[in-house]
């Protein structure tokens, strides 16, 4: 030990090594926790598979297995062009939903006690998981996109369109991660936290993403038309294929902004409640 700073002099206890840096420290803490998460991701085999192989598998599955049998209805699009937006969201969304599990693991294991005795703002702990999730799942979506291009996806989009698509996917992954964080903080076990993935995995099927919503029976069609994925997918399709967008852009933005605006403060509140000394 190079610097024994704890010698007792009978009058009192000397100060421990103290934190330096003020306002910027939260950003630094967030970065450290994000790096921790990304490191963990690279070391868990099933996580790596979810993030790299799954997007490719989903893309291949839809284009080659289901694609031949699904009609794209009145749009008259090639199936690969039709399905790409949904697969991009599925690729990022499933991993985002797993944020519930990583947060729940931290909360139910001993790790949270360690974090709570550190001089850091509590909110950086769940925020670190959410930010890491966004980075990780954007990478998954990018892999899915690369696979789509290899499988014959021919987008017709300007740089601005691509930027907007990126913003939409980021918004979706952020919204799902934040929603997952809320769920992970509400439940008391990793198993229960994992259940959220099924909801997120299931949503795209009942949207305009995989089969045209116009082909669905009444009730399902009503759900598909009014759930967030339909306007997001319709907007992405319009941007990527240079089609008319209609009102879907506004609806998609409203959905994503709404979910983020509700879930982020709610997650912070739940985290504070779970970790307050009671």
């Amino acid at each position, binding site marked *: *030990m*190079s*610097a*024994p*700073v*704890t*010698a*007792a002099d*009978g*009058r*009192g*206890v*000397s*100060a*421990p*090594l*103290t*934190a*330096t*840096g003020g306002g910027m*420290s939260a950003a*630094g*803490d967030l970065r*450290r926790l994000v790096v*921790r998460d990304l*490191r*963990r991701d690279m*070391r*868990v085999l099933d996580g790596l598979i979810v993030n790299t192989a799954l997007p490719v598998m989903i893309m291949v599955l839809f284009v080659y297995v289901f694609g031949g049998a699904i009609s794209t209805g009145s749009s008259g699009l090639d199936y690969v062009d039709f399905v790409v937006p949904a697969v991009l969201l599925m690729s990022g969304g499933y991993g985002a939903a797993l944020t519930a599990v990583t947060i729940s693991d931290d909360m139910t*294991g*001993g*790790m949270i*006690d*360690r*974090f*709570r*005795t*550190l*001089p*850091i703002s509590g909110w950086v702990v769940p925020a670190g998981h959410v930010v890491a999730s966004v980075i990780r799942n954007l990478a998954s979506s990018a892999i899915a996109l690369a696979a789509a291009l290899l499988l014959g996806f021919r987008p017709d989009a300007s740089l601005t369109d691509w930027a907007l698509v990126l913003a939409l996917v980021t918004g979706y992954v952020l919204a799902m991660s934040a929603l997952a964080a809320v769920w992970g903080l509400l439940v008391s076990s990793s198993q229960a936290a994992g259940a959220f993935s099924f909801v997120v995995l299931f949503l795209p099927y009942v949207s305009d993403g995989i089969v045209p919503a116009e082909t669905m029976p009444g009730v399902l069609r009503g759900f598909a038309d009014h759930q967030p994925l339909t306007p997001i997918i319709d907007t992405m399709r319009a941007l990527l294929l240079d089609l008319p967008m209609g009102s879907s852009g506004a609806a998609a933005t409203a959905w994503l902004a709404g979910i983020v605006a509700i879930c982020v403060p709610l997650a912070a509140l739940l985290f504070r409640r779970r970790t307050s*000394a*009671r």
Partner: protein
Amino acid sequence: MNAIHSRPFTDAIRARGLTKSFGANRVLAGVDLTVPTGSLLALLGPNGSGKTTTVRILTTLLAPDGGTATVGGHDVTRDGVAVRRMIGLTSQQATVDDLLTGRENLELFAGLYHLGRRRARRRADELLERFGLTAAAGRRAGTYSGGMRRRLDLAASMVSEPPILFLDEPTTGLDPRSRAELWSVIRELLASGTTILLTTQYLEEADQLADRVVVINGGRVVADDSPAALKRQVGAERLALRPAEPADLARAGAALPGAHPDAEAGELTLALQDPDHLRRALDQLHRAGIPVGHVELRTPTLDDVFFELTAAAA
């Protein structure tokens, strides 16, 4: 050093009348304890006695229902942030990341203490060296043995060189060798001036390390003394004895002052005050004409401590 930290006080930890209930379950029923600066106090008790609850209150993770406590001169309920700056905690559950290497864990926590990258790396090196983990620094914590994990956990608690350290059952589940290694690490920390509160189920551990032992049972302090005094009270060793004729058990009990006959086990136990006590006890039985069938010496267990302490109170 800032003014808050230099406020003079001689007790690093001071708790008075701590109470805590979870629903109808009263876990702490008024716990008092004092840990002078630079000393080690062992909080000894069985599972469910309130040890962990006491530690969680003192480390600001849990608010007490009643009573007061100061750690490092700061009130745990009113000034939690200041308390946290003074303490390190190694809780029963592992509080290191299994997927990160030993070094990565320490660098993460050093970073979260805002030591700066280079200092964090140096600090991690120092701690790995000090806790005997240098060779395993590059391996994931998940691959560590139980003893190595506890040492890494302890190292993580020492990242900020806190003057006050809480160790919640640090050696539970460790093999004897790992336990001895951890003890020597704890002794070194104590020698460097760290104040330590340690909980344990093992009387021997308290005896090895502690300046003072607080025995807690059912959320109440049942003894607060030096290990030597406690052992005097309980007896260093216990004599377990079986008469040759089972029917002689009651008579043997009467012949030996302080013995506890146990009809069910067919034996009686006696706390030995000193080695010569054994000879005297056998002499007494001999004089009473009771042949001895089986004799055994046992180190006192926690059960014996409670038996003794509650018997003394009754």
